[in-house]
């Protein structure tokens, strides 16, 4: 249960940023370990890469990209909030602009692959 005084969008943004950051931090060591396999045991890496073609892993990858996006934009939002003396509506607009740019770029990216 979210305590009543926390039920607002700024707190939601804060907690999403924290959780995504934590999850990414947990994920990174595995990521690096796997990349290291390319140097030490290329066969095992290939085996793993074919496993990543399964739908469930694809879904997990989607989650990962989502986490990254959340954390990336959460960070941009914070920096804008704290380092630009803008009015609140200007910041909302800026966040919206970046989000739409990201959306367009992702759709483009998905079409390419």
């Amino acid at each position, binding site marked *: 249960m979210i305590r009543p005084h926390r039920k607002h969008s700024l*707190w939601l943004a804060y907690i999403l940023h924290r959780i995504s950051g934590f999850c990414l931090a947990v994920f990174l060591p595995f990521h690096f370990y796997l990349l290291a396999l390319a140097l030490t045991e290329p066969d095992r890496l290939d085996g793993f890469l074919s496993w990543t073609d399964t739908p469930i892993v694809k879904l997990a990858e989607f989650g990962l990209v989502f986490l990254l996006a959340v954390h990336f934009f959460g960070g941009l939002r914070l920096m804008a909030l704290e380092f630009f003396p803008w009015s609140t509506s200007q910041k909302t607009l800026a966040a919206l602009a970046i989000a739409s740019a990201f959306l367009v770029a992702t759709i483009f990216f998905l079409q390419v692959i």
Partner: protein
Amino acid sequence: MSTKQEDIDVSVWRGDPHSGNYENFKVPAQESQTILDVISWIQQNQDATLSYRFACRVGMCGSCAMMVNGIPRWTCRTHLNKVLNGNKLVVAPLRNLPVIKDLVTDMDPFFDKWIAAEGLHHPSKTRLDPIEEIEPKSIGRVEIDTGIECINCSICYAACDTVTNNSDYLGPAALQRAWTVYNDVKDADKQTVLDAVSGDGGCLNCHSQGSCSVHCPNDLNPMNAIAGLKRATVASLFSRKG
């Protein structure tokens, strides 16, 4: 809200600094009833020993703040029908402050931090100098504009989770006050302000969760003021000679 007489179930925190529990009361609902009306009705009709604080009843003095259904609010200007949860109302003393008795908190830590944040005027002139003219539209004055409407109600302080987790944190109201002093061209000692707000309990603790700005009854934006202090702190790192 209907005008027919219905009873509301009100749970009120009763206790001293060491222990306490909720006590239940039934209070007749009335039109245009504020939370302060409800509490006063209990005190006048059911239990004269109930302690609570208020003065102006019109949102000026900042003394009537309490936790209402889990959210810090000014009770004299909060209408019952705006916050009623079904038929229930839970009223407790403000978070993040020591309880003295029932709904009365000890505000000392809150005000002590105003001083600790150097939210004081540091005079630059004597009474013999002419009064300095301040252009109302100047950047510094505009920045100060909202901050000085603060009524010291401590609602933002009660809403802030950083205060909960770090009892040394100066808190939103004191830092906002420091920001107004920092932007005051009549203030002679901005570096003292900056030193006071950039230390251990200072502005850099703030996580920009924004509960202060969301719950401030006067629609002030302490989070913004604190962001200003963060910028000033960072800027001073670069401008100071190493």
